């Protein structure tokens, strides 16, 4: 058996390599901290596989280049960080409306406004509620390790093609900058029939990809069709649990803070406190049914986020009515240590 290919790389490079493993051939982006290793890596390596890297004039241009490449059926990606993702929202809305696939990575930083470049989970609402205008959703994947950056980026391409819908990978500055060993396993990208792509109308009727529906009732029909698609996406729900079987208290966290709080949970266990973790990996669709089922057995939840309270709303909507939901939020600007979060667990544990 050949040795597994393990390398020590940072989280952003891991995303870039996951994209290339998934046969992404086109990347369009605009520099912004803390995700620059993604475009930097792809600018060096995409040309060698016959791909294209363009540093666009803006985030707006790059999302629309992604829209154009996606319309031809090509596997393409853009990446940015919070303020840049705000600029991309119009294009993401058009892609969702026109059912054009594409992968968008948000290695988020702190806001609002220019904010700072430290890790934050303040973009949860923007990521999961559509972000742009109109009644649409994107699949949101939330890695919590450099390995998952690699794996979930690959998966994002498959899901995007499968549903003809933009897919967002939501990490943060911490997950982009830290280095970990990553198993760079090969991957067989899934092939999807794409009878909708724009390739020139050779031997077939001409096609158009659009989101404009002006005739009475047409847009209603289109939105219901999109809604049905979002319902089908529930098949992709992914989450992870840790030590929940006998737990009295279940922490609900995603992304980087879930990674930190695992250490806090281990500290609690050492002191005999029965604490577990429920970690959503798909933030949209949210794993509401697994969480609801868990809440019929365990009635105490503790939501911890790097913001002032966003995902906590989804937890409250998901859990059994009798369950108690406590919340601890750390607004952007500093990262909590495992010890600090252990202290917070102690405050709510009973």
């Amino acid at each position, binding site marked *: 058996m050949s040795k597994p290919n393990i390398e020590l790389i940072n989280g952003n490079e891991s995303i870039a390599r996951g994209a290339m493993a998934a046969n992404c051939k086109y990347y369009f982006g605009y520099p912004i901290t803390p995700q620059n290793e993604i475009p930097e890596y792809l600018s060096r390596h995409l040309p060698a596989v016959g791909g294209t890297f363009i540093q666009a004039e803006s985030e707006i241009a790059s999302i629309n280049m992604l829209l154009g*490449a*996606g319309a031809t059926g090509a596997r393409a990606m853009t990446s940015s960080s919070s303020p840049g993702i705000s600029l991309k929202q119009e294009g993401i809305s058009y892609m969702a409306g026109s059912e054009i696939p594409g992968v968008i990575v948000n290695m988020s930083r702190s806001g609002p406004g220019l904010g700072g470049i430290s890790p934050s989970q303040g973009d949860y609402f923007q990521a999961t509620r559509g972000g742009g205008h109109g009644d649409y959703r994107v699949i949101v994947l939330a890695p919590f390790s450099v390995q998952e950056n690699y794996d979930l980026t690959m998966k994002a391409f498959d899901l995007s093609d499968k549903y003809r819908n933009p897919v967002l990978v939501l990490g943060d500055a911490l997950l982009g900058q830290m280095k970990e060993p990553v198993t760079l396993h090969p991957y067989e990208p899934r092939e999807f029939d794409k009878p909708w792509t724009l390739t*020139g109308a050779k031997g077939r009727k001409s096609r158009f990809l659009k*989101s404009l529906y002006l005739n009475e009732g047409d847009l209603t029909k289109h939105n219901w069709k999109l809604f049905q698609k979002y319902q089908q996406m529930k098949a992709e729900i992914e989450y992870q649990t840790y030590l929940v079987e006998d737990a009295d208290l279940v922490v609900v966290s995603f992304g980087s803070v879930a990674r930190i709080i695992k250490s806090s949970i281990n500290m609690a266990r050492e002191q005999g406190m029965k604490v577990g973790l429920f970690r959503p990996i798909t933030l949209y669709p949210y794993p509401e049914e697994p969480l609801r089922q868990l809440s019929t057995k365990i009635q105490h939840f503790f939501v911890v986020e790097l913001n002032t309270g966003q995902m906590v709303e989804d937890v409250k909507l998901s859990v059994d009515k009798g369950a108690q939901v406590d919340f601890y939020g750390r607004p952007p600007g500093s990262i909590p240590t495992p010890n600090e979060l252990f202290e917070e667990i102690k405050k709510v544990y009973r």
Partner: protein
Amino acid sequence: MKQVFKRPKSLKDVPFHFCPGCHHGVIHRLVAECIDLYDLQEKTICAASVGCSVFMYDYFDVDVCESPHGRAAAVATGIKRARPENFVFTYQGDGDLAALGIAEGLHAANRGENITIIFVNNTVYGMTGGQMAPTTMLGQTTTTSPFGRDFHREGYPIRMAELMTMLGGTTFSARVAVNTPKNLMQAKKVLKKAFEVQIQNQGFSFVEFLSSCPTNWKMTPEKANQRVQDEMIPYFPLGIYKDSE
């Protein structure tokens, strides 16, 4: 009897929605004639825009991708980079190209993208009801320049065909009009050259059409044609501004 005039193959057999006297229909036809001439119907992908031309996928019988307002040149860039074997053009009005999308248009030109931009300049925002455009003439009244455009307040009308020539990546830039049969025939010649630039992989080509908007100019079609001649052409002179093929 020999048929001497017929609908271009790449235009669908449906009536245009454009107002009487508007030049969009004529410009659509010229573009479609060039698509037919170079046998491009089966390999063309258009990045459509918003505004009065938003329904172009109802008229052009080629693959069309909708673009957000102003972003057609970026969408066309994505299409062309993914499918260099296709013929790719954008069709944009003056709000689309010269206001919201000026960065996308100039940077696509500067990169020398092998695409063609068809730019329709009628000095007004047509679809939204006649507001001021970046190309609105000095003194011209619109619903948002009710006292006439004044450069102290609103700046000068932007000359896009000239602006495009300043960029290293631009291979071809020209301005044409279709208000008279003579201008129309010249426009066709110029448009053919722009198409050839892309077909021969020579880079970015740009054609600005001066167009009338009788409805928002509150003029008859005849008077609107005369305005193109008397007011627009002196400020936006016709001609080929750059041809470095």
